[in-house]
């Protein structure tokens, strides 16, 4: 799980152009939106694309997204259980 969390940190920094943030700056339990990394709605869409492109996962139920995208850790747990590649 820790390896996947570290991979996700690097991928998120890259696809969301978080240039001033290093992987070690991100606490995997911090909220992704609002506080924490302070991501916005476009970032959320980009993360959905990341899940599909890198892990073959489509989020079918948008109501689940809030829980899945709570933090890097919840995202990693979801990927670990549902990844197709």
């Amino acid at each position, binding site marked *: 799980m820790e390896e996947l969390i570290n991979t996700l940190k690097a991928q998120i920094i890259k*696809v969301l152009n*978080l240039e*001033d943030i290093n992987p070690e700056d991100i606490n995997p339990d911090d909220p992704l939106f609002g506080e924490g990394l302070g991501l916005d709605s476009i970032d959320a*869409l*980009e993360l959905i*694309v990341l899940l599909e*492109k890198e892990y073959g996962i489509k989020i079918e139920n948008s109501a689940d997204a809030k829980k899945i995208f709570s933090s890097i850790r919840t995202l990693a747990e979801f990927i670990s259980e549902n990844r197709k590649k």
Partner: protein
Amino acid sequence: MSKTNIISDYCKIRGNKIIINDNTEFFEENYSNFGNFIKTIYKSTQINYPKFYKMDDLCKLAFVTSELILKCNNLSNKYKPDEISVIISNSCSTIETDTNYYNTIKDNSNYFPSPSVFVYTLPNITIGEVCIKNHFMGENIFFISEKFDSEFISSYVNNILDNNKAQACICGWVEYNKDNYESFLYIAEKNTDENNNKLIHNANNVKQLYLK
């Protein structure tokens, strides 16, 4: 032609050179990469605005140019948000970002349209970035023309100022494509006693500054 409006400040960025109000503030001919060049300038402004890194290159150019003139003339200290307009023009619209976006959708077997690229496929997003950062809420519009049209821009902006639709306007030209980048933004304001030594805002003076 209006004689009551003036050009209070201007900034030009082209050829890795930055000129602000006739003074060359930065010149480094060794930058072959626009991304590195504009990031260096952004960092030199000491503005902490992480959203800069999410912008496309056209927006980065408009954003940095506007921040450099606003450092000379902080319009927010003088006017209400709805009294400050932003009027920008260029010829290539968002062609580079349009192409980048197309590259995310052209292959059906690798079809992953990027939302963060898509949002920059309209040129007026450049104005949006400037307005969001500075909370400007005045009239704004982005024009497409074959080349910088000082006659049209100065006339349009004078009309806005003369009809009290705005008290000040950031206006000019911001162009970016893979072979070329160039920005020329200036502030047009209504004249006051403090501004007596400033250039009158008319087509000829705007053109002279642009060509200088």
